[in-house]
């Protein structure tokens, strides 16, 4: 078996197994409220971080505006699901499927539009443009008002639309007050969507296009010289990344009942980037593991005692710093080498069993 295939099988199989275990425990009612709640959120963040890994890891470009795509996915899907719910008679699963797809399509379209200029840039310039893009998306949805009444849809920019029929008024987008969506996201939906997204990402990375992207990442000029249409492949990966981020945004929106555009700010982009970087660039498995650990950690610290609860963000920060050092500081690299050498001597078999589980 090829190494890539084997690697992908481990990641996909491990994720499926983990989800299956959680699913069974949940169905049996053995999971407590917090863990059940967390699985949904973490699942959504995994979708977001693996999609960002496509841009940052595979394409090799630092994108600081990933939350912008989630924002588009979130708000466009909320618009669709609210309107369909208002119509009535449409089954919930159809509403949700259409909403997620619409969110993905909107984010993809935006990905193409923003990608056309952005994918001509590289490095720092690209990072700055994506940073700006994320902020623009947030501000845009901060100013859009959409209200439905008996006469149809009314659109307002910076101010709510006027002359609305008060009796049939339904506010869909409320500018800075955000929007609300029916709470349709649950564990099973997230699990299914997560696996589908993971499969798409793996197939893309292991395809001709994916390898072209990696060639561009590793040596831009060499890739160009062998006839790879650099901008095309970069645009393709960027758009796919945006679309999946849109899916994450749609799920996120439908998991919380209300959402403000403010949520999709620079901090969220950075948070997801942290998951990708600490998980390892280009490694989907790494992103999944890092997201689980880094998201669950501060929440699980709640369970210890009130003093820890008060200091948990401090502990989280210390762990982040430690992880960074562990990955990059020469001292720790040496230490790891030494430990590794020891394990090799001992031929310890018990350590290897851990890898496949996660």
């Amino acid at each position, binding site marked *: 078996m090829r190494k890539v295939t084997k690697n992908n099988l481990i990641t996909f199989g491990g994720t499926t197994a983990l989800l299956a275990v959680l699913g069974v425990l949940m169905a049996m009612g053995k999971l*407590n409220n917090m863990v059940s709640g967390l699985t949904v959120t973490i699942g959504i963040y995994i979708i977001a971080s693996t999609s960002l890994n496509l841009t940052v890891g595979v394409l090799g470009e630092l994108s600081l505006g990933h939350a912008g795509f989630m924002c588009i996915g979130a708000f466009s899907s909320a618009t669709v699901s609210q309107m369909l719910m208002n119509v009535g008679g449409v089954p919930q699963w159809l509403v949700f499927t259409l909403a997620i797809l619409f969110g993905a399509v909107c984010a993809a379209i935006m990905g193409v539009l923003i990608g056309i200029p952005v994918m001509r840039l590289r490095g720092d310039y690209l990072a700055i443009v994506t940073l700006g893009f994320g902020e623009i998306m947030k501000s845009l949805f901060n100013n859009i008002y959409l209200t439905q009444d008996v006469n149809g849809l009314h659109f307002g920019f910076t101010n709510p639309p006027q002359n609305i029929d008060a009796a049939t008024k339904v506010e869909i987008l409320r500018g800075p*007050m955000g929007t609300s969506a029916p709470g349709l996201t649950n564990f099973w939906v997230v699990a299914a969507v997560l696996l589908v997204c993971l499969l798409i990402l793996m197939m893309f990375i292991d395809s001709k296009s994916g390898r072209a992207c990696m060639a561009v990442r590793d040596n831009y000029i060499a890739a160009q010289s062998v006839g790879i249409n650099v901008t095309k492949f970069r645009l393709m990966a960027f758009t796919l990344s945006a679309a999946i981020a849109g899916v994450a945004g749609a799920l996120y929106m439908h998991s919380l009942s*209300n959402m403000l555009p403010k*949520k999709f700010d620079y901090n969220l982009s950075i948070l997801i980037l942290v998951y990708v970087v600490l998980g390892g660039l280009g490694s989907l498995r790494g992103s999944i593991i*890092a997201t*689980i650990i880094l998201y669950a950690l501060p929440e699980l610290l709640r369970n210890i005692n009130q003093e820890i609860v008060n200091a948990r963000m401090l502990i989280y920060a210390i762990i982040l710093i430690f992880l960074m050092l*562990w990955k990059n500081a020469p001292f720790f690299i040496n230490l790891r080498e030494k430990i590794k050498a020891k394990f090799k001597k001992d031929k310890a078999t018990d350590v290897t069993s851990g890898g496949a*589980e*996660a």
Partner: protein
Amino acid sequence: MKNLFKRTAAAAAAAVMAMSLAGCNNAGTSSTASDNYGGTGSGDIAGTTSGNGGKLVIGGIGPITGGAAIYGTNVKNGMQLAIDEINAAGGVNGMTLEMNFQDDEHDPEKSVTAYNNLKDKDMKLLIGTVTSGPCEAVSKEATKDNMFMITPSGSSVNAITSGDNCFRMCFNDPQQGKLEADFIAEKLSSKTKVGIIFDSSDSYSTGIKDGFKEEAAAKGLEVVVEEGFTSDSNKDFSAQIQKMVDNNIDVLFLPIYYTETALILQQAENKLDVPVVGGDGLDGLIGVLKDKVALADGVYALTPYSATASDEKSVKFTEAYKAKFPDADDPIQFAADAYDCVYAVKAAIEKADIKDANISSSELCDKLKAAMTQIEYAGVTGDSKWSADGEVTKNPRVMQIKVTDGKGSLVDL
């Protein structure tokens, strides 16, 4: 080397999973499991022998880290003060109260996690959440579970509209805007041309502004300029201030928080000399202006409580708070709201005659939501009554900042 890192990470992931699964055990255990978590880190609660009725766990959720931490900390302290007082006086109907307060970082997502966590720790009712956005998310969950909740300070309309299990201690945003328009129309009757600077990216600010404009039109006030800013451009207000000057406004209405207000006051010095009226967001203005406090002289603020207010109940609360938390800053209205919430809940529990802390949260909710509409509670923030939709009725209180000898204080008119 790379491989080993992966292995370590995998082992850590497995450990985390194990930890989280270990947490599951708590869900099944009996109602007294909460002891392990130490109520609030306060020895005096743990030391009290619980009454015959057992321990009733009151959950609290709010930001105690991050930018809004001051609000959550005040609510936490206010709750703790009230709960300790009640327990010292023998509890409620033989039951001892116990608080478990969780941080939400002013984030709806974290807030829901905190709520789920509290449910696992046998929470019977919720005081919270502190801020509006998270409150909207948590209230939907609470309605699903039929969990009684009362927010001390979540002021957006939607914070409590998800069901009849939700109540509120403060005014909602449009209500506050309306009251402020009434105040300007009645007390500053010669001032009819109003200028507004508001934060268009903030639901609190926009909500008050909308309520204000509606009432202003009805009361014959004219909103001549309405200038928005966003949380990304909240440092330079010269353009907005110039518009106010150009339009000759009589009164400046600031439905915003104190940090921006302080900047506006400083930048408007010597340019704009009109009365300034603000909402409860101005609580904290004196502290942030420091030696420039003279700029705030005469500013009106609609706020239910101030640490420098001289009425008997406020003074008593302020002294008790300072005695209990000598290291903390002076309490702001959030602390008073939270303190009142606990006592209002106590009054409702007594009214509903609940004696056993082992009651299920849903049954408790049914009884409390009926009792809440029947009680009248005279608290630090005013004499309050609740309607079935959860909104409070109490007298609005407008205070004014008075500066004497370089020291500012918020006093009743």
